[in-house]
């Protein structure tokens, strides 16, 4: 097995210069993700600290607002998309061709899109019950944390669009390969954050 140069799937020796060339970029992106982790961490702490009677301000709480089934579905979508994203990386590593990679990316995007639709419909139903972010400090914390994750997913979908464009225009150049590696890291990282969200926000709220 070849040495791991950086987090995430490594291209390996069969990719020649692209393998070591990706090292700095992937490592740098990993540093960025760690910085992003702090961002989420602060919002997690803010959310957790606002779950007091004062933070709820007499408004609705987790039991009235959260829908376990929908959250379970979202989790399933995201986990599946993490796997398909891994398959995209794997196709690249196995030299399976741009078409196969694009296909896996599309599946990833569909699953991610499904996640987002469900999340947005949950948000909409909360708003309909008068439980928007302006209702209470706790709801502000909720929407900021979960919403930021949703924004990241949205950005990821745009990124998939750019990757598909790049694959179409430039094929599998070394630069495109590195970008695919970065995207995979990003997408897996979002699933990690989601573990925190469904555990700390939803499950803990409903337990």
């Amino acid at each position, binding site marked *: 097995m070849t040495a791991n140069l950086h987090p995430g799937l490594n291209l390996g020796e069969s990719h020649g210069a692209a393998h070591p060339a990706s090292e*700095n970029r992937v490592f740098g992106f990993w540093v960025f993700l760690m*910085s*992003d982790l702090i*961002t989420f961490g602060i919002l997690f702490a803010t959310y957790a600290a606002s779950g007091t009677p004062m933070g709820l301000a007499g408004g609705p709480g987790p039991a009235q607002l959260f829908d376990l089934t929908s959250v379970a579905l979202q989790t399933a979508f995201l986990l599946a998309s993490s796997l398909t994203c891994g398959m995209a990386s794997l196709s690249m590593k196995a030299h399976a061709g741009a078409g196969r990679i694009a296909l896996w990316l599309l599946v990833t995007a569909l699953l991610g899109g499904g996640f987002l639709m469900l999340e947005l419909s949950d948000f909409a139903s909360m708003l309909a019950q008068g439980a928007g972010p302006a209702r209470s400090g706790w709801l502000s914390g909720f929407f900021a944390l979960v919403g930021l994750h949703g924004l990241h997913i949205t950005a990821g979908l745009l990124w998939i669009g750019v990757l598909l464009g790049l694959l179409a225009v430039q094929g599998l150049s070394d630069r495109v390969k590195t970008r695919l590696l970065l995207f995979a890291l990003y997408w897996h990282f979002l699933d990690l954050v989601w573990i925190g969200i469904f555990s700390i926000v939803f499950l803990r709220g409903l337990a």
Partner: protein
Amino acid sequence: MSGLFGHLDWTVTPFAAAIADPGTNTFVAAGAAGLVVLGAVALLGFLTWFRLWGPLWRDWLTSADHKKIGVMYCVIGIVMLARGVAEGAVMRAHQAMALNGGPLSAEHFAELFSTHGTIMILFVAAPLVIGLINIVVPLQIGARDMAFPVMNQVSLGLTAAGAALLMISLVIGRFETGGWSAYPPYTGRVFSPGEGPDYWIWSVVPAGIGSMLSGINFAVTIYKCRAPGMTYMRMPLFTWTALCAAIMLVYAMPPVTVSSLMLALDRYAGFHFFTNDLGGNMMNYANIFWMFGHPEVYILVLPAYGVWSEVSATFSAKTLYGYPSLVIATMAIAVIAFTVWLHHFFTMGQSASVNIAFGIATMIIAVPTGVKVYDWMATLWRGRIRMTVPMVYLTGFFILFVIGGLTGVILANPTIDYQVHNTLFLVAHFHNVLIPGVLFAMLAGIHYWFPKVFGFRLHETWGKRAAWLWIVGFCVTFLPLYALGLMGMPRRSSSFADPAFVPLQLVAGAGAVIILLALAATLVCYGVSIRQRGTLAVPFGDPWDGRTLEWAMPAPAPEWNFAVIPAVAARDAFWAEKTGGDPYVAPERYEDIELPRPTALGLVICVATTAAGFALTWHIWWLALSGLVGIGLAVMVRAFATQTTRVLPAAEVAVHHGRWLEAVHTARGITRDAEDSPANRGLAAPDTEVTP
């Protein structure tokens, strides 16, 4: 209301206010705004008259060369320093007359300390530190550039956007009045409905993101781009401090970005993070803000320590004393700095046990700094000391910074802090560490590395005048504030009723005049040096008999830094070569060099961010959206670029390097006695007095 121009109309400029309500207060504001406008017009005129637009565009704005980017950071820092010092002087003048009143309105005074603080920390100290790291680190570790040259440009663009917005706020509308920390609920929309806090938010957020990106860039560069043989324990100390500061930037900038954006959500979208009602918790703002704020001061001061390390070793011609202890102390500070943030709000109401935990952590962090001061003094001990400009600053630093540090330890005791917090004692303390600690180091660092970037030394006599004026000016301005604080004068007071404060206020006011002279002398020093660049030129590149790799190349350093990537065999790599043999030998062969191509990405993002920030401040939604979409599009389009580097043929490098080597071999070096004479062309001869 939000039409095409949002909340903008003709009444928002200070000129309108000066016409409507003439008086000292409005004239000062209008004068400042006039200066900004005049300055901008003069700059545009200058560029046009001397036909500098082309070179500015080609050589600077689109360049991805780390040295150029570093210089542009420093230029931002110096320009903003001029504004910040001017504001400081205006505040001192006002307070000197503020017994039962004072010339400025309370609100105007509040705007002054808010812009002054924001500018000094985020747009003076930070750009100078980041600029210097940019210039120096790749040279010290034997790299051709930063790991991500284009992202480096983007960082600069974001910082510049924040600075631009701060300048715009002088002319259009008003800045925030809640201090540089902008605590809600006062800065929330209930108490500050105007544009002020929005200006603050949209200048801080881009600068914060830009600094975070710089941190990533520096960290990856130092981790991954070192020359062969440059092991961690051979890295020059400035690089070590840069590495620690970079890692801190990565983790300390997210809090301020988050807290500012949360404040923005409160203000724009009615969220309740920090409001008085419906479950808001304003104490969380202080908490998050200082999770950034405290590490930030160490982000600023660690590289300053790095400068002192280089300066003390070079100008005493000795190896740095206690290198491992300096490294360990740096790392210890970088970690402990994340555990002390609560000392900025000891009085917020948490229990004594929480306070004492953070108090103890704060006292502990003074220990590694103490270690460092001893190391520097031991470095100087029996060295071949030359009292050059950086050494004058170092002397000032030694004495003054220790006083500032000790008052910090005093403040670390919560019981004492309860007495003196929010007084001028605190103002004295933080200026006492920031000015001798950070600002002196940056001025010294600029003096030290200037020749490497521009090819000529700075004028020593003017430099020394400036240094002494800074030192004396600092003492006269800020030491009295300790006493005033202990007498009970609160900080941020636009007026006071106790005549006992007047005498020391007058002293401090006089000190501010000396500081203005110091600023002027600094600028004169740069000007005079540019005029005399012929006699001050040091083309051979080693004016101070330097010890680290950056001195092993011509001055100005070529765009590609190293003709061949050096193989490092020792700490103080260049010194080892000089003492061990001939450092100026031609390599066996040269190779093609890959350099980043110029790109306008950073500039595009700068313009789009400025526009978006301005538009958000004034609720001009179409422009805000265009700006944000513009940023996104710029990044996406950039992803499709394929020609991002260009190749410099080996032959060209060989010619350039060969010519320099030849010149070096025919030149005569100078001993340290002639360091400050026109004979110093940047080639050092062995100095008999030197003990290693």
